[in-house]
């Protein structure tokens, strides 16, 4: 009996070709993501066919369905969501986040710039210099009951307005630039426009504090002084201010 060649009916042949064509055309991003994690392997082959960029975006989206470090970043995986929809949603979310971050950076830069300007204005308004620096040990006869460092400062008003008060931080450094002490200065006796005043004060020295002891032992001629103003109030009621 002669062997019969395999015959396929034309209709069946067409159906088979259509099936093959469909299988070839089937886009991986059209697959629906299962909401049940245990059945996630149903779309594994589709995920493997995605480009690396799309795959990463999908994974980031999937992570967001379970956890998010960004407030409001958590997303609920709706039944019927396709891979493409998930990728698009992730892309738009990331674009939104980037826009927010850019806006935050711009705002930060603006604030920094404003602060720099205010700092500059403050620095240009007054000049404070250290005129003398002297360690004075406790002396009961002189009614000085603790060890102190006596300082004298010269304050110059470089503006054309009368200053009512100055507030800021005085910084004392040694010859090598090591910071020894920061002391807050509040001066409210006023300085006339363009004039200079002197101010005398003292810093208590804690004998049990290493830095305080080091401060008291500084050679006066080698002390490096700086003043960082954070607020100046003028007699006319206006003020210059920067957050310390």
């Amino acid at each position: 009996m002669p062997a019969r060649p395999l015959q396929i009916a034309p209709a069946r042949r067409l159906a088979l070709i259509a099936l093959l064509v469909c299988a070839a055309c089937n886009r991986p991003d059209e697959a629906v993501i299962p909401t049940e994690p245990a059945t996630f392997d149903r779309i594994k082959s589709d995920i493997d066919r995605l480009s690396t960029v799309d795959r990463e975006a999908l994974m980031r989206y999937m992570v967001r369905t379970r956890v998010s470090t960004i407030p409001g970043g958590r997303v609920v995986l709706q039944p019927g969501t396709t891979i493409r929809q998930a990728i698009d949603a992730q892309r738009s979310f990331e674009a939104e986040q980037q826009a927010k971050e850019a806006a935050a950076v711009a705002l930060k830069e603006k604030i920094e710039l404003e602060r720099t300007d205010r700092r500059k204005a403050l620095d240009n308004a007054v000049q404070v210099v250290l005129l003398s620096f002297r360690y004075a040990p406790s002396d009961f006869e002189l009614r000085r009951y603790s060890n102190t460092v006596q300082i004298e400062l010269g304050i110059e008003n470089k503006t054309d307005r009368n200053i009512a008060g100055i507030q800021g931080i005085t910084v004392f450094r040694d010859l090598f630039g090591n910071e020894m002490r920061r002391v807050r200065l509040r001066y409210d006796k006023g300085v006339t426009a363009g004039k200079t005043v002197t101010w005398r004060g003292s810093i208590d020295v804690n004998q049990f504090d290493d830095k305080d002891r080091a401060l008291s032992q500084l050679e006066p001629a080698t002390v490096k002084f700086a003043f960082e103003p954070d607020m100046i109030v003028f007699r006319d009621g206006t003020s210059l201010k920067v957050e310390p």
Partner: protein
Amino acid sequence: MMIRILMFAPLLTMSVLVGSCADPAATEALRIDVERLRARVDEGKKERIKYGEGSVLNLLVSMRVASDEHTLAMLEQKSAALRWYPRFTYTVDGQTWKPPADTEVQLRVLEVELVKAQSEARAERARAARMGGLIGMIAQMNAELKAMPVAQLEYQMMALRHGYPIYLTPKPSFEELKK
């Protein structure tokens, strides 16, 4: 003598072949993680010495070290299995264990959680380092409590990354449930 060599030759060839079947990338990743975990266990043990035996801090560090040792033991077992028997499988409740279908997603979720836990633990340690006395002790205890989830998350991550079951306790049998 010759006969003996001939007897062992197929065995030797088989073991070499089996050894070479192991996935080199997986073996290397395992080796790196084993070394990292070993260093962490050693570090934890050194830290434990600082605290007196029986103290709360000693206990907390011991718990963290135990968790890391558990992870290390599983990794070493997996490493040995990969080396000598690449088709090694785990059986859980009488069934061959398979990694979860969404392993990659789970791994990424754990990575996010681990980063968060690590940063919290770091911040708590830094806070504790700035304090002294009784408050410092309490802060150190808090820091150790924060370090615990790091070890546990690490265990889960290693299990997913290297493919071994996370299960810690077997399910109770029917007879046990009846009681």
